[in-house]
């Protein structure tokens, strides 16, 4: 049983290392982030198998922490590296935010974060549509609302390529 | 060939790579990454030294040192990144260039 565990660990490790190739290849930043996301699942599986192979139940805690935090890096990527694009396109006036008095900005922020979830979702849709339409690079400009565009992406991602 | 020794020697390799990049790269963010790689190499050697007695419990003292060291390294990284940003705000530069001798 021990040797089966170790063989599986080695096998998973090799699939993990092979997946890292995607970080080098890209081509888009999202592809590179995906390879980092690969770590969450595969390393958790490796940790769980290692816990069994070396009878170290403490490794379950390591796997638990990894599973708990697996989404944070990707979230940071989509939230932080996203912001720059709208600034690039001149949609967000970079100087306006800077000149605003500190207290006012804070007040607005806390007011926003108190809004119910539904209101946030609606605002976000508008934000996305506003984001996309003046961008000639995106095919969203062809009058697709952001909602239906989301749907098409999902079906493109979901259709036809069963693993 | 001992597994622990493999990792300790890999630690030496990390120190070499990190030192080289620290000296050669000009972008400050890369220098910060290089610093982190060097410290990872040092941590590897320390944690390897904790495991020299085969089959016995690992030595807790180096492990405790590495444990706190990792957290402190992250804090130092955050400070370095903030300083790079301050430099960029002040001078518009994010790297050390030879030209100008400043």
């Amino acid at each position, binding site marked *: 049983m021990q040797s089966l565990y170790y063989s599986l660990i080695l096998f998973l490790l090799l699939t993990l290392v092979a997946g890292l190739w*995607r970080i080098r290849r890209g081509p888009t930043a999202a592809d590179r982030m995906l390879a980092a996301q*690969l770590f969450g699942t595969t390393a958790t*599986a490796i940790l769980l198998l290692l816990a069994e192979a070396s009878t170290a139940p403490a490794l379950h805690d390591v796997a638990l922490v990894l599973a708990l935090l697996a989404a944070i890096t990707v*979230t940071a990527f989509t939230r932080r590296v996203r912001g720059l694009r709208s600034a690039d396109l001149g949609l967000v006036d970079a100087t306006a935010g800077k000149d605003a008095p500190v207290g006012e900005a804070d007040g607005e922020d806390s007011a926003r974060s108190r809004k119910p979830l539904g209101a946030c979702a609606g605002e976000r849709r508008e934000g996305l549509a506003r984001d996309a339409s003046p961008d000639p690079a995106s095919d969203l400009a062809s009058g697709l609302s952001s909602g239906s*565009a989301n749907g098409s992406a999902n079906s493109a991602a979901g259709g036809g390529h069963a*693993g | 060939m001992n597994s622990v020794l493999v990792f300790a020697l890999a630690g030496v390799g990390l120190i070499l790579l990190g030192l080289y990049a620290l000296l050669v790269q000009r972008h400050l963010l890369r220098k910060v990454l290089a610093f982190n790689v060097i410290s990872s190499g040092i941590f590897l050697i320390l944690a390897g030294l904790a495991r020299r007695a085969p089959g016995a419990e690992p030595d807790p003292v180096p492990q405790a040192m590495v444990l706190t060291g990792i957290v402190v390294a992250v804090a130092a990284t955050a400070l370095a990144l903030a300083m790079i940003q301050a430099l960029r705000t002040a001078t518009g530069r994010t790297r050390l260039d030879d030209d100008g001798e400043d």
Partner: protein
Amino acid sequence: MLVSLSILLLLAGAVFFLAGTLGLLRFPDVYTRLHALTKADNLGLGLIVLGLMLQADSLAAAGKLLFIWLLLLAASATAGQLVASWAQGKGIKPWRG
């Protein structure tokens, strides 16, 4: 009996991980790769977790394994959605065969 079932599940899980990595490397664009990663790999992890749960010492240990899998499902599903909508916001076009 239980042990052989467990071995079978572990091996099946490894196959799904292989499929996930192959998809990540071979699929043509970020959306399809996302699909390979979030679905195949999490199914693989689920099978491995199930295989290990069959051998767990206690109910609590088995529950912890299941909890880890559920956490990763939530994380992967969200991360996949975020990356896809990021890519779409950037105007990265889905591949059309």
